[in-house]
């Protein structure tokens, strides 16, 4: 590698890292407790007491209450509001009903009620004031809504560029050094330089995957908007000119669900979008169904059921961009392989914190040194160049 190309990659690495490091540190620190979100909830609130443990609220097992009943219970809790979404679980009888003044109200005005479908009891009203919720908001959009989300997505892209340029610089740096070398006793700078390189290259695949899937997740809102304007509009084209359906004429939810199950056998519902909401037309219940294998479970197919007649209108698999988003979620959260996977996620997250911290230290320590000296440092594997 020529000195000029090392110099160019060094500058790319320096500037992309500098811009994103503080945001990435925030993301790693807030992300760490979020990995264990479910475990922390159970520890602080205790395991929920349910009527029929192990029976998924998404199933049609006898003994589970009708969806119409569940809807009535939820609306009785929030008089004057309407349902926007209803969501199900495959592993237990709990389900949620999201209510709001209107089906298309902004999410800040929505209330999520957790109900037990086997007893009809209200379990809790999802808490939006807790520490975990605060961390999640900070991690997702820094309380700035869509612009904040997209900004963090851009930071994720810079992080990716920093990783790639870091790998390029790893080559000249390691030319005379064996993998895993940690020169901890010569100077503090050399010690952190070696740790930075070792951790960076060891965690490479994980940081790239979690970084890039994080970027895809920041695009959730635009991705869903494209789906609404293209796919949803095409599926409900015949209804385009009709006025919104009166709520009093809505057909039974259970009837609609039965139609959706009949149209797509071998699936189970993940959530229902109510008429007039962002995920349906003004005339349809949109029943989003998931497959029954671990992989197809992630890929949803919406079945649109006419909310006035209860007949099936159309079902189309989500397009590739929604499927990419659906697969990006588990790959970013690390919640798809049991507790050991979460622990590995946490360890690799800690590695990333050390990579970011040591990078910052290496920059702070030698800010006044010339670029040439830094290039020498890379060329010689840290033994010459920036004097320590």
């Amino acid at each position: 590698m020529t000195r000029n190309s090392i110099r160019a990659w060094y500058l790319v690495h320096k500037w992309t890292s500098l811009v994103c490091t503080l945001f990435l540190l925030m993301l790693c620190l807030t992300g760490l407790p979020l990995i264990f979100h479910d475990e922390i909830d159970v520890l602080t609130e205790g395991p929920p007491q349910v009527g029929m443990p192990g029976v998924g609220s998404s199933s049609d097992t006898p003994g589970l209450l009708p969806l119409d009943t569940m809807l009535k219970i939820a609306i009785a809790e929030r008089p004057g509001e309407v349902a926007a979404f209803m969501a199900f679980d495959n592993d237990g009888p709990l389900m949620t009903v999201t209510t709001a003044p209107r089906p298309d109200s902004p999410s800040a005005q929505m209330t999520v009620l957790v109900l037990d479908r086997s007893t009809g009891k209200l379990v809790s009203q999802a808490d939006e004031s807790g520490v975990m919720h605060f961390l999640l908001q900070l991690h997702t959009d820094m309380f700035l809504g869509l612009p904040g989300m997209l900004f963090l997505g851009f930071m994720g892209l810079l992080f990716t560029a920093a990783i790639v340029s870091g790998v390029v610089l790893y080559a000249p740096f390691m030319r005379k050094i064996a993998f895993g070398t940690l020169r901890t006793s010569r100077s503090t700078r050399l010690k952190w330089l070696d740790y930075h390189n070792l951790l960076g290259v060891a965690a490479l695949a994980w940081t790239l995957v979690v970084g890039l899937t994080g970027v895809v997740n920041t695009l959730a809102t635009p991705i869903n908007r494209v789906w609404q304007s293209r796919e949803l509009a095409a599926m409900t084209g015949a209804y385009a000119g009709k006025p919104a359906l009166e709520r009093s004429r809505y057909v039974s939810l259970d009837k609609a669900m039965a139609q959706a199950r009949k149209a797509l056998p071998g699936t189970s519902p993940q959530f229902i979008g109510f008429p007039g909401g962002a995920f349906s037309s003004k005339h349809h219940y949109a029943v989003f169904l998931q497959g029954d294998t671990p992989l197809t479970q992630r890929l949803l197919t919406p079945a649109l059921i006419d909310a006035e007649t209860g007949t099936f209108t159309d079902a189309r698999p989500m397009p590739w961009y929604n499927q990419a988003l659906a697969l990006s979620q588990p790959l970013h959260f690390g919640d798809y392989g049991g507790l050991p996977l979460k622990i590995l996620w946490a360890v690799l997250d800690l590695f990333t914190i050390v990579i970011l911290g040591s990078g910052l230290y290496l920059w702070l320590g030698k800010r006044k040194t010339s670029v040439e000296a830094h290039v020498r440092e890379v060329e010689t594997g840290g033994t010459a160049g920036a004097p320590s």
Partner: protein
Amino acid sequence: MKRPKQSLRQVFAVPVVLAVLSLFGLIAALTGDGLRDGLSWLALGAPVLAVVWAMRFRRS
């Protein structure tokens, strides 16, 4: 500590193995439960073990 210059292939031999194992681990758990989860833990554990090994045996 002085060693002859390594080729690009030598420099990236271990990192490439770790990256391939990591990617395999990330995908394995996504495609199923049980055995696939176990394989995923082992494979994604490789980069962590590599760092532990370096801290134990490669410090100087």
